């Protein structure tokens, strides 16, 4: 990791390219750098957690100490000094005659700049937002409306306080604290995140959304999301992420756990736009994320992700199809430009009979970036009649980038079927000239072609996000042609 004693921001020249690159000058409670059992205890204490949660953290921490960073990904990860990171940062609540729900105007302003309005009365769209800055949730909107339906949507810390039994029942049950190096790290030091519970038979009346923002310098962000859709419930959940532009690398290691009970359905969409670093690969977020859900009988979990940010992305949103007839879906667009590296894909674990899964992965590589799809399709001996279809496409925009596909298929049941298709294509000079002759310049042409290429996945995003995500695709690839 780079020396972060230098507090300079990257030059103005790139400021226009990543419009979320500003930082907010707000008082932040940051604990000293370093990771030890005492730090884990300190975090738990700051959050006033019950004993069982501290135990959970400590177990994870001790496991983590025995683990080493995974090296199997097609990623060149510089050494990370885990003692040079601060594991807890929280915007300080200013003193004053405020109610708990009132949010610092500076934070409201920050989220407004990001296009996230925390002022409910001004909100027209049917989206409830949980805004997470650095380590803590600063505001969850629309809570009362959701409560009428019995839907719980709050920060993780509040859930621990208000619904400890629910949290305890599900926490770590699909991503165990010892699952992998980064999951163990998160389980030890996670600070906040979002909690969602949809009661039996309830269709959540609006989109739920968490907006993650890294602000403080020299910190990592370790949030946890826990979503439970009880029997016959439905929820669509969105996640957005941005960070300031900084010369140093920032570590983000999150966990998302999703429980989809019988006949329930969860749609989980991500637009990930963490700061990607500059053209030479200086700075940017290291995004090491573990996302997994379990589907019981006739349940459905659908992951949609548009990944444009981060210097390094390591993430495999997965579905454990435990119940009969369960359905898993993974739709992904991963864009890498300049020196970005992504190793992303999914795992579809078929346990139940007649379980079905679909994987559509669209990789777009430009500049000197490296973009890999890595996926596992596993049909257990019990997965009678299971079916998977996987399609992995790569689009190359330069001669210096790389696109790789690592599909693992493991079929242990004779009646199960796994299909895999893959294509690689390149935007040709001929296509660009054809567009130019019709008056469409190279940047716009690439945008059209890329959005056309990614359409199948973009169509899976909720409307509110689709337009933004389309713009994001074009912006991420600016300057990659010509």
């Amino acid at each position: 990791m780079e020396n972060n004693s230098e507090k300079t921001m990257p030059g103005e020249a790139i400021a226009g390219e990543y419009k979320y690159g500003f930082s907010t000058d707000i008082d932040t409670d940051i604990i000293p750098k370093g990771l030890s059992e005492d730090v884990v205890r300190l975090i738990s204490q700051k959050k006033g957690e019950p004993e069982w949660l501290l135990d959970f953290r400590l177990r994870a921490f001790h496991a983590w100490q025995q683990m080493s960073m995974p090296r199997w990904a097609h990623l060149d990860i510089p050494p990370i000094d885990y003692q040079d990171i601060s594991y807890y940062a929280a915007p300080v609540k200013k003193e004053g005659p405020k109610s708990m729900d009132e949010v610092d105007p500076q934070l409201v302003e920050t989220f407004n700049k990001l296009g996230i309005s925390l002022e409910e009365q001004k909100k027209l769209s049917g989206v409830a937002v949980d805004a997470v800055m650095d380590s803590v949730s600063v505001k969850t909107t629309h809570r009362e409306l959701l409560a009428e339906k019995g839907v719980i949507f709050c920060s993780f810390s509040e859930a621990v306080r208000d619904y400890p039994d629910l949290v305890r029942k599900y926490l770590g049950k699909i991503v165990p604290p010892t699952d992998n190096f980064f999951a163990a790290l998160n389980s030890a030091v996670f600070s906040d995140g979002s909690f969602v519970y949809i009661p039996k038979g309830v269709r959540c009346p609006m989109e739920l959304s968490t907006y993650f923002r890294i602000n403080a310098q020299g910190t990592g962000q370790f949030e946890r999301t826990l979503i439970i859709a009880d029997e016959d419930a439905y929820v669509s959940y969105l996640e957005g992420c941005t960070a300031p532009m900084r010369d140093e690398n920032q570590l983000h290691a999150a966990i998302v756990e999703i429980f989809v009970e019988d006949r329930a359905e969860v749609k989980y969409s991500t637009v990930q736009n963490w700061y990607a670093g500059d053209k030479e690969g200086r700075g940017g977020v290291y995004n090491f994320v573990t996302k997994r859900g379990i589907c019981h009988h006739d349940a459905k979990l659908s992951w949609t992700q548009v990944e444009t940010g981060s210097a390094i992305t390591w993430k495999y949103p997965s579905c454990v199809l435990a119940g009969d007839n369960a359905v898993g879906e993974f739709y992904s667009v991963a864009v890498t430009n300049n020196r970005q590296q992504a190793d992303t894909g999914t795992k579809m674990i078929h346990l139940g009979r007649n379980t079905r899964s679909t994987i559509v992965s669209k990789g777009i590589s430009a500049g000197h970036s490296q973009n890999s799809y890595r996926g596992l399709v596993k049909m257990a001996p019990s997965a009678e009649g299971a079916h998977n279809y996987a399609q992995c496409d790569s689009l190359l925009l330069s001669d210096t980038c790389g696109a790789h596909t690592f599909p693992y298929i493991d079929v242990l049941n004779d009646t199960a079927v796994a299909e895999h298709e893959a294509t690689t294509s390149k935007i040709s000079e001929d296509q660009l000239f054809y567009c130019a002759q019709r008056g469409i310049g190279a940047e716009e042409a690439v945008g059209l072609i890329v959005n056309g290429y990614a359409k199948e996945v973009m169509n899976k995003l909720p409307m509110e996000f689709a337009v933004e995500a389309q713009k994001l695709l074009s912006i991420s690839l600016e300057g990659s042609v010509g």
Partner: protein
Amino acid sequence: MDQNLLLNVCGLRAGIGDKEILRGIDLQVRPGEVHAIMGPNGSGKSTLAGVLAGDPRFTVYGGSATLGGVDLLALSPEDRSHEGLFLSFQYPVEIPGVSMVNFMRAAVNAKRRYLNLEPLSASEFLKMMRQKRAIVELDNKLASRSVNEGFSGGEKKRNEIFQMAVLEPRLAILDETDSGLDIDALRIVASGVNKLKTNQNATIVITHYQRLLDYIKPDVVHILYKGRIVHTAGPELALELEEKGYDWIKEQN
């Protein structure tokens, strides 16, 4: 300079890398005219079309080309398009995933932006698409498909003329638009071109055969050979070529 010239090409020399293909082209086109450029294979017909449109594969060594007095060679390919130059490609390229509707909308609005006009609303645009489609008897389904993807040879050429109808160029260059067309498709394409003809615009028809010129009547016929225009005459020249072939040109030059 003749104020009435739409296209004025003088001494244009161009090629690929060091390989000179056009060796001093002179060509003057006035509004309302149809010019045919004929010639044997490899004489530089498609190169001329490409160079005028700004195909980056070609390098210009010398000479000039203006469209309505504007220096074409100084403009990017997209700005040449905005200035009213249209090239109907011999081999229209497929652009998977980009629907014709989105493609044309981007093209129309890029031109409007260039001309400092507001973008067309969705309803105005779709109405225009409907009108223009009729000119080349293109059905609705074709317009919602990806650009040229899975189109038959005839559909691709009709699609080119459809785009020409939408963009309303001042100068259209049709590069071997007749190649690969059966007689019905040829008639539809030619009739489309004729419908779009006004006394303000002009068309250059590049073709190997006389056949297309039965449907699109040229005012002037040029013969391009070894990178030069070696012969210019009226429509009767095309008939003469049909009869005698290109050998007498080769002998003379």
